């Protein structure tokens, strides 16, 4: 059986302005053979709607503006409400302090990548997480 292509939905979480990181990750995931949809700046509700519509395996959000905690937790709670939390992977990338990383993991994010994370590490982490789904 052919290996299923991993489908990744990427977004800027909320109004954050910085997108160099997420565009770099998007290209690297695509180069690694994944299907990548980038929807730009979106609210948690818009991201969840797109995840359902696109039937994405992985939802990755980027936040460097300091709103990661409130919007991240909102995203996960909306995912639970729509019953798409358990069958998908949720990732965050950006400028997130250590303490908040723990909080986001507790909230339900599968992995958090901060400044300096290597793209290979992100690719293999996604592949492993999807396998375990």
């Amino acid at each position, binding site marked *: 059986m052919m290996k299923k292509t991993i489908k990744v939905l990427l977004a*800027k979480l*909320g*109004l*954050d*302005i*910085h*997108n*160099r990181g997420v*565009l*770099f990750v*998007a*290209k690297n995931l695509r180069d690694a053979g994944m299907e*990548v949809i*980038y929807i*730009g*700046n*979106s*609210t948690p509700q818009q991201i969840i709607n797109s995840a359902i519509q696109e039937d994405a395996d992985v939802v990755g959000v980027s936040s460097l*503006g*300091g*709103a990661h905690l*409130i*919007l991240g937790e*909102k995203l996960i709670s909306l995912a639970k409400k729509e019953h798409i939390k358990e069958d998908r992977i949720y990732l965050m990338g950006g*400028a*997130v*302090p*250590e*303490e908040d990383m723990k909080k986001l993991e507790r909230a339900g994010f599968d992995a958090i990548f*901060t*400044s*300096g994370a*290597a*793209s*290979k590490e992100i690719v293999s982490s996604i592949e492993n997480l999807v396998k375990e789904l």
Partner: protein
Amino acid sequence: MAEGKKTLKEIINKIPQDKRQTLFDGKALDLIKEGTIKWKEESLKEGDRKNWKVTPGTTLGSEIPRNLIYTPLDTPDLDYRRDLGNSGQEPFTRGVHPNMYRGKKFTMRQINGFGGPEDTNKRLKFMLDSGATGLSVIFDLPTTQMYDSDDPISSGQVGTSGVAIDSTRDMEILFDAIPLEEVTVSIVTHFPSNTAILFPMFLAAAEKRGISFDRLGGTVQNDTTMEEVVRSGPEYLPPKDVFRIQCDNNEYIRQNIPRWNFTTFNGYNLREFGTSSVTEIAIAFANAMETLENLSSRGHDIDFIAKRLAFFWSISNDFFDEAARIRAARRLWSRIMKYKFGAKDPRSQWMRCHVQTSGLTLTRQEPLNNIVRASYQALASVLGGAQSLHVSSYDEAYAVPTEEAALLSLRTQQIIQAETAVTEVVDPLGGSYYVEALTDEIEKRIIDELSQIEAQGGYVKAIERGWLHRKVATYFQTEQAKMESGEIPIVGLNCYKSGRKEAPIDVFSYPEEAEKRQLDKLARLKDERDSKKAQRALKTLEDACKSDTNIVPYSLECARAGCSEGEIFKVFKSAYGLWNPPEVF
């Protein structure tokens, strides 16, 4: 305009060459050449000869290849009076003021902004009490993107990354008890559109305190590149309209607030997003030139307009490249102003700049290393002759700086200014064979890039066509890969990794309640204001947007009438429509 129809290259190449006096005579150069050939053969190893030119791998560097050693052979045509001059003399390579830092020290201007205006007001006072000589204010995500705090899109983000401002009332709180007649304020509005909203709120707030406009000093950013290319955001206005708003801001401010620098042409954020040190200057100059052409076509005298221009550069790790770059930009700008625009007032030829040390070079790993990086970057800026400086803080890969980290950045500047004596002598790197050769090469490369922009119809066209978006995306994809592979060495990240567990650093946390406070104030404002007057002001602004009159006086009326930022942005969207920027992924 003196030479409007010729290309920039034609103008620069046509600068009068008579009375040229090169520093080195031909015979001396011949002897140096002969000696150098011999030295290469006798003293250098094969490997050194082969690797004579090396291109350093540095974050956001110029990628100009470097020789093993520089000699007069690398600047054989150097003419002191024509290419350098003393400080305060054309072409201002060595500095815009004759006595440079002895006369006017660089302004220590650290950027601040978080929470509500009440929170940032306290931080501004703390910075002034600690010896800061200028203020700089940055706005939160909703304010920057032009949404009110109570817009659903702003939820959870009020007061993050900057200070929340919804109306003139917030502006009054932000600058409460700060002597606006004495201290200059950089209002980092970033975009033309939010400049046209927030700066009138600042003016209306000053007015309420009885401060007349001619006593205000400072700068706004007001930069089309920022609004259309650098930022990621949900809604964009079309480039030609944003550029028109930029020029409206310029015109209004120049005519009404005489001490205000009406635009800081911003290279910084474009470069941090992804361009080389050369492209950074080329794009900002292209924008500045197109702005001058626009204002001149509105009938303004070039010398009246040009004397209040300022630029904003990023300063990264390639030490001599950075210092040389500021010199090259100063010389080229002087030549452009004199020979392309026919400026007569020497002041119009000044390339004055604020610089900020590079945020992209800061690492999350071993954050204290960032203090060292920023210090070298700050020193390069001062050796290059910058007018004002922001040193980025070591904790910025985690969050906005803590008070301690912000103070340390200010102290870094104070140590350079008070302890190292580098400010005692003007342009200390001038005359170095290496720095002069780099300065020449950088100037040449900026002209080449400006010519590429010119060839496709100018700055706004280059944005409309997606050329600039694609250039940036290609650059940062390649560069980021080099940062990962170690081709660009980064200590603690891709080389000299320690592997030891790092001690946690204090990280800033945002004040709670800022969002609630903003919502309460907005509700109160809308309840208390004369709502008919506010609606009338918005309607009049929309009419102005659709005509070719300057919109700023009408936006000022909106600010006075208590309109909110989001309401004014809605007017812009209704008048101009939205634009889809080119996709770069």
